């Protein structure tokens, strides 16, 4: 028997049926840091092709490493197999060229906080939106991973503002599968519905949230953290014991200080300041305990010291 015959499949189609791509078969992520890599991995895990953008080759290589580390962790926790990892990695492509987003029907901007200062770069993010509008088709959705930034503001200078929307992936507790979906002033219903569908496709819960600084998650968390710092400062209880009350007593997966260390103290300070600016309420003023850690550059897990002390793997030492 002769060897296998290999041909292209297209000519064997039956109908003239409109063969447009299914929704979200290819998506883009701008910035593949902590949150961007979470989004890329999650989407690829659900079968989507993902293109992520980083500034240069080095950034791309680091992002690949970050994604791989995430998947390896999942394998060591029994949640994934080596073969599945290969398939997922095969769906993810890194680039530093916006043109490579062409053909994506959904791109999420997730530029990370500045590594040292925790400052989110609004001007830069506006530029990203403009670049995206340049390369994407009119029907493609442009989203921003936001928590205190207002998406209407980011989208203001675009031509088609109805396709812009905000998303907030909660990334601080492993496998917390929920997104806050934040329509801006000009976001169309169609865009909102499609993004809800995206959430369902990646097997995430979602809640719609009115455009506001801090949304539900960040406001709830920061207030609790500030109060916990207050209790600490008054000498009423210890870091470990306050976390214990939350985990054992209230059934939280992890305590508020542990979560803060994972988020990064530098980021928390900026978030609190943003809320303080926006609402002017004292409850958002960063507690002196947080500021003390910030000034000492004890940013949490990333620097091995925050409310707790950590080893290189991020396990609590004390």
């Amino acid at each position, binding site marked *: *028997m*002769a060897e*296998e*015959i*290999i*041909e*292209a*499949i*297209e000519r*064997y*189609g*039956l*109908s003239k*049926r409109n*063969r447009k*791509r*299914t929704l979200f*078969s290819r998506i883009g992520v701008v910035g593949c840091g902590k949150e961007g890599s979470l989004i890329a991995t999650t989407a690829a895990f659900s*079968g989507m*092709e993902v293109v992520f953008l980083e500034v240069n080759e080095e950034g791309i290589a680091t992002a690949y490493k970050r994604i791989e580390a995430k998947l390896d962790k999942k394998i060591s*926790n*029994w*949640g*994934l*197999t080596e073969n*599945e990892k290969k*398939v997922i990695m*095969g*769906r993810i492509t890194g680039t530093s060229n916006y043109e490579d987003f062409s053909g994506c029907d959904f791109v999420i901007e997730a530029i990370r906080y500045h590594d040292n200062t925790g400052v989110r770069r609004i001007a830069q993010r506006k530029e990203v939106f403009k670049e995206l509008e340049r390369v994407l088709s009119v029907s493609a959705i442009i989203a921003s991973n936001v928590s205190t930034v207002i998406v209407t503001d980011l989208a203001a200078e675009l031509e088609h503002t109805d396709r812009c929307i905000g998303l907030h992936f909660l990334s601080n507790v492993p*496998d917390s599968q929920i997104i806050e979906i934040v329509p801006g002033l000009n976001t169309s219903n169609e865009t909102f519905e499609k993004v809800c569908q995206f959430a369902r496709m990646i097997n995430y819960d979602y809640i719609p949230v009115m455009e506001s600084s801090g949304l539900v998650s960040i406001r709830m968390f920061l207030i609790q953290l500030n109060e916990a710092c207050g209790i600490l400062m008054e000498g009423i209880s210890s870091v470990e014991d306050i976390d214990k009350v939350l985990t054992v007593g209230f059934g939280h997966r992890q305590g508020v200080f542990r979560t803060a260390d994972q988020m990064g103290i530098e980021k928390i300070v900026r978030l609190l300041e943003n809320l303080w600016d926006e609402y002017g309420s004292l409850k958002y003023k960063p507690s002196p305990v947080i500021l003390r850690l910030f000034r000492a550059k004890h940013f949490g897990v990333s620097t091995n010291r925050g409310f707790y002390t950590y080893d290189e793997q991020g396990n609590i030492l004390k």
Partner: protein
Amino acid sequence: MNILVLNCGSSSVKYKLLDMASNEELGTGGVEKIGMKGSFLKHIRRDGQKVILKGEILEHQLAIEYILGVLTSEKHGAIKSLEEIDAVGHRVVHGGEKFNSSVLITDEVIQRIVECIDIAPLHNPPNLAGIYAINELLPSVPQVAVFDTAFHQTMPDYAYMYGIPYSLYTKYGIRRYGFHGTSHRYVSKRACEFLGMDYSNTKMITAHIGNGASVCAIQNGKSVDTSMGFTPVEGLMMGTRSGDIDLGIVTFLMEKEMIGASYVSTLFNKHSGVLGVSGISSDMRDIENAIKDGNERARLALDMYEYRIKKYIGSYTAALNGIDVLVFTGGVGENQTKSRQKICESLAFMGVEIDKELNAVSRGKEVLLSTPNSKVKVVIIPTDEEFMIAKDTLEIVEKK
């Protein structure tokens, strides 16, 4: 009459076109990686030539469209037009308690299959996608659903119930359903034909052992017990599934490894079994090679795999008060001569005796392995689920 058999998985569609009058395979193959990068259709023509068609195949409907396109194409096809397909038979994984036999697909049947999604969230949706696609592409062609679970619906309640609060059965339908039903039904029936025995008056055990594996106790043509349960993870140790396990281990591990439901499911379904124990592979050929190289864990994995099969055959022999026929089928059951020999030798206490030389050269064909002295007839019957699905489809469509 030409019947198209479809088996739709989450990212694959397997198909076979059969001419039932001549019993001839007109074309067979499968689409892989639906919705992913690198999707392709592999078609084997009637003359045996393999054809690979590469291109984007985003969903089941499109996959089936290409399958129909290839089957009717001048170059590789077997039929001239779609009108030559008289009926379509679908493999449907879970029929719950709603189906105890194959049925003609109607809107009501579809609704009932939809209702079973709760207990088969991974399998029934792609099966339904196949049914919807045919509805659209071949609207006038009758379709039949053949369920993996239907054959086992004859089990008595004391065999299918679990020892947990009864309210969980009424609330969620938690009970043993069993799987591989089409295979167990085909090989048991075929074994009786092959041996010239009366199917309605024979006690038999069928061992479908491959990467997925289950054993079935069949009394007078009816399944009375089977090793897979509410899901396919129960029973024998398999390629990557643990099989029977102490529930205490599950809760212990959830606590110790701090993992939740989906991770636990992956652990016992994908990281366990022969792969998990050996650390090498889920494929028995790799395990055999590793044993030859002196790998101890590969040997352990194989010992466990075979021991579990022996245990199940022993317990089902008790359940049936003795057996007349033992059937081996499935990839390992049909081809793994050493395992077959070891299992049969370990059953000597119940009068099983096989011709070792014959066993050593028998692979993938119907053979009577037992000696005339053996109290139990031991046979290999290669499984043919597609043929069974086509046969059911033919019968139902003709009755219509």
